[in-house]
């Protein structure tokens, strides 16, 4: 059973990462942007796993583990912030939450 070349995974992760970036830039909904960030993290994780596989080492997997944990923490706080924003400004559109400027 032949092996899928690692480069395939890497390219896939790159593509996902790029799409995530596009989403971050182009979505207006805070929550969606958040999800886009998660997507980018996932892409990075994929790359990590692929590299770990390629080198036959575990470190990459451990990193992935940590990334996931940190993502969880981030989501916790981030969503709490989102809820607060919604309560205070009744909108989720980042372009409407623009008082902090100049």
């Amino acid at each position, binding site marked *: 059973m032949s092996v899928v070349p690692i480069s395939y995974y890497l390219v896939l992760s790159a593509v996902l990462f790029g799409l995530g970036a596009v989403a*971050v*830039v*182009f979505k207006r909904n805070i929550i969606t942007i958040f999800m886009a960030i998660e997507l980018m993290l996932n892409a990075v994780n994929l790359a990590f796993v692929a590299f770990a596989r390629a080198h036959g080492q575990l470190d990459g997997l451990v990193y992935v583990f940590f990334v996931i944990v940190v993502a969880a923490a981030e989501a916790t706080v981030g969503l709490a912030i989102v809820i607060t924003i919604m309560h205070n400004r009744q909108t989720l559109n*980042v*372009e409407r939450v*623009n008082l902090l*400027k100049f």
Partner: protein
Amino acid sequence: MPLLNHIWIILALPLAGAAINGLLGKTWPKSIVNTVAVGSVSLAFLSVAELVREFFTLTPDQIPFVGNYFTWMTAGPFTIDFALQVDQLTVVMLLVVSFVGMLIHIYSTGYMAYEDGYYRFFSYLNLFMFFMLTLVLGANLIVMFVGWEGVGLCSYLLIGFYFLKKSAADAGKKAFIVTRLGDLGFTVGILLAFWTFSSLNFHDMFAKVSAMPSETMQHSGVLTAICVLLFIGAIGKSAQLPLYVWLPDAMEGPTPVSALIHAATMVTAGVYMVARMNPLFSRSPLAMLIVAIVGAVTAFYSATIGLVQTDIKKVLAYSTVSQLGYMFLGCGVGVYAAGIFHLMTHAFFKGLLFLAAGSVIHAVGGEQDMRKMGGLRKQIPVTYWTMLIGTLAIAGVPGFSGFFSKDEILDAAGSGPHANLTLWILGLAGAGLTSFYMFRLFFLTFFGESRYDHHKVHPHESPKNMTVPLMILALLSLGGGWVAAPHLVGGTDHFEAFLHPVFAAYAPQTAGIEQGVSLAGSAGESGGIAPSPALELFHAITGPPVIVALAGFLMAWWFYIRKSEVPEKLATSLHGPYELLLNKYWVDELYAAVFVRPLLWISTNVLWHVVDEGIIDGIVNGVARVARESGGQVRELQSGNTRSYATWVVVGAVGFTVLLLALLGMAVH
């Protein structure tokens, strides 16, 4: 010799007095302020006396005695020690300054008794003493310069003592600024001197200059330049042409100040400096000539102005200027000793005259216009007699101190090694005028019918603490000159003999020989023709100076006692010249037109409106504006729109990725 090793004490005393009075005196009663001020100066005088006593115990090779206290500043080859030195010249100056200073302090306690800022006045006065002594004692040009500037400062402070009076404040500023012009030359002179001799210690400078081969030196422009520049400083400080204008205005200050600073001590600093620098000057004939010319012309010129002044202090001021002229004339013609001698006697009688004038003013309630005086000799006898002595002394009447010194100067100008007929005539004329205007002053003040308002003014003799100094100074004016008396009968001039080492030490050979000849000369020639001392004496007391002095006296008597209506006639008939003199040749107006107004105009229209507002403010505001504009542009990036930020992040990521790719490419290839 305890005190010689601690010369600084002489400086420390008045400084301490100034500090104590200045910092604490505000709330103290006058008595304590007096004690501090007069006490410190008196102690200074006493220590000077002790110093002199010790000085005479020194062997000639120990002179000048230099006390080197600490290295003040060091910059590469340039090192300045705070060093004080004592030699004969210093001794003379020290005695004059400290003694006259002490007397005037005492006098001031009476004169200033009812003035505000009493403590301030004495603090300034003590400070002046400190600086003046520093100037005199300094062993190098820099320490001297410190004293030089310090006395300038004190003069400014004291002229502007009544700073609520605009004229006084302006006079102070005028004195400061005009003197500053001279100081500019002085400073440049110092730099040039250092550049030339790579040292500013009098010792080293003189050693180097005397080591120079005389023939190169004769034409050495640098030397002349140094001398001229230093002399410019002297001109400023000693109120010679063309920078004399500040001195008459300086009379705005309290009379004791005029006596101390603007008659006895400070204004003579220039003379002292020139005398101190004699090794340089004597090697630069051109500089000598300039000094002599300036001196003579000033002497005559200001005497003419003095003729018609009506303000008693102004008259004295102009006479001071002219007397200073005589001193420079003396230095210019090579008889430094005579210059210093006249300096000393002048300190006595001019101080006396000022103090007496002050006493008169005091008597008539602050009135300074002589036309509102007259007939005061009954009311204020002490002042009358002392002023008489002063007048006789300045007029050069034989037997009075002025006679000896002035006679020596004119003698040297007429028949000395650097004799010059024109200068001699000028000096002579000046002498005549001097006696005229002095007696005019005397007669206007004390004789004739009283012209003051009897209801307001009740003339009264001054208190003891004012009259006593008057008497002492009167005595000195009377007998101060007799040290030179033997010269008249062919004997030696003790004063000159005393100072001789200072001026002979580094004197150029040729000049030295000439001077020696001249010294012996008078005796020699007299010995040639008529060797009898009596004849010598007769020659001396019937010499041209005495004649012209007598003429001046008679003319004054004729004008102001005998036919007191003549002056008005003259004033009307010779209206032009009279106006010219009365307005002091319009020099002030001239300066105002030539220097002050253009300067003001430039300052206002160029420096202020263009340079300051346009360029400097422009730069500053421009920087601020640029910052604000750019900030305003840049802050647009801070749009508060998260998506824009995200975009920037992406852009940055792209940048890094491209960079990485480039590096990878390099690494691969």
